[in-house]
């Protein structure tokens, strides 16, 4: 299957750029403001019922730094499509697709946790894997793999615990 196949010419008025993906999966890049319009079109007109993943790529130090990636699956047509959307570090916000696919909520929480991307419209955007209040985003390219103070939250907790134990006598 070459390029977008049956998707050819079906994007209506949504501005997009077709990207040649190395793995041959149909792939388009859109501006952030057009993301929801494109996603709605893909779901309602082209039958992509499932959003299989929402993640991101950090292109640090290039700008715009982040590339948000949505992958969709159509069971009806046995078809997949990937949607790219670039955002800069200063304004790392993306509209949430949880209104279209409620199941994307967990993917967006993970992407928020790992890359620090804010998903506007997400009902409960909090960290998924790292402890609440960690303050760093581990999958960013400038994050050292041994971490930044990985034990800080534990030590704070430990200090409070010891303080409580000491005051009991």
């Amino acid at each position, binding site marked *: 299957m070459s390029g977008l196949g049956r998707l050819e010419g079906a994007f209506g008025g949504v501005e997009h750029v077709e990207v040649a993906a190395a793995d041959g999966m149909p792939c388009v890049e859109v501006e952030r403001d057009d993301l929801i319009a494109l996603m709605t079109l893909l779901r309602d007109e082209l039958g992509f019922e499932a959003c299989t993943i929402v993640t991101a790529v950090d292109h640090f130090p290039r700008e715009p730094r982040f590339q948000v990636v949505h992958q969709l699956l159509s069971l009806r047509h046995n078809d997949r499509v990937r949607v790219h959307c670039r955002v800069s570090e200063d304004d790392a916000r993306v509209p949430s697709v949880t209104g279209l696919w409620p199941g994307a909520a967990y993917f967006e929480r993970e992407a928020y946790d790992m890359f620090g991307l804010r998903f506007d419209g997400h009902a409960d955007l909090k960290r998924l*894997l*790292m*402890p609440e209040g960690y303050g760093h985003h*581990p999958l960013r390219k400038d*994050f*050292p*793999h*041994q*971490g*930044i103070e*990985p*034990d800080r*939250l*534990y*030590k704070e*907790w*430990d*200090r409070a*615990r*010891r303080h409580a*134990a*000491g005051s*009991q*006598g």
Partner: protein
Amino acid sequence: MGSLKPVEASATDGGFFATRADALVNWGRKNSLWPMPLGLSCCGIELMAMLGPKFDLARFGAEAARFTPRQCDLLIVAGTLTWKMAEACRTIYDQMPDPKWVIAMGVCSSSGGMYDSYAVVQGVDMLMPVDVYVPGCPPRPDAVIDAIIKLQRKIERERPVKSLLAEPVRDDVWDEGHGGFLRQPNMGVSTHRSGEYVAADEGEEA
């Protein structure tokens, strides 16, 4: 430490034992360890095998695994401990009544293992004193049984009665060179009686 020897010359038909209180207490403790299985990853599967009929930990008196720390005296940290889980792990340790012992099962809980990572505790001795470290990824059930036997040897050498009369001794002491808690000889009494707790990181702050 002497074993329990029956005295032949008996005042009554039932006979009697002469032994030291330390030996009697230690004998009871080492043969009825109640493990708290903290199965965090694949080591937990080997831990289950160890408790099952094939390896049969009951032969060593330590098969009564309880899922409440209040009833346990042996914490087996089996698997990769993440920093997110660290508070829960230390809470479980704190909730266990004294005397208590800890086995770090597998390389992850011993040293972080292959996870040289932001998410993983680089050895549970950063949180609590450890009695026996078991290498392996995961260790075979035999290796953990060996660790329990080694722990039993260790318990035999404790002096519970002497330490009851003496000042309580802290059993967990932070060692800067080691970068973790070192297990002091477990005296078999509560170490938190004095209410004082030396900070794990007090050295850095001072």
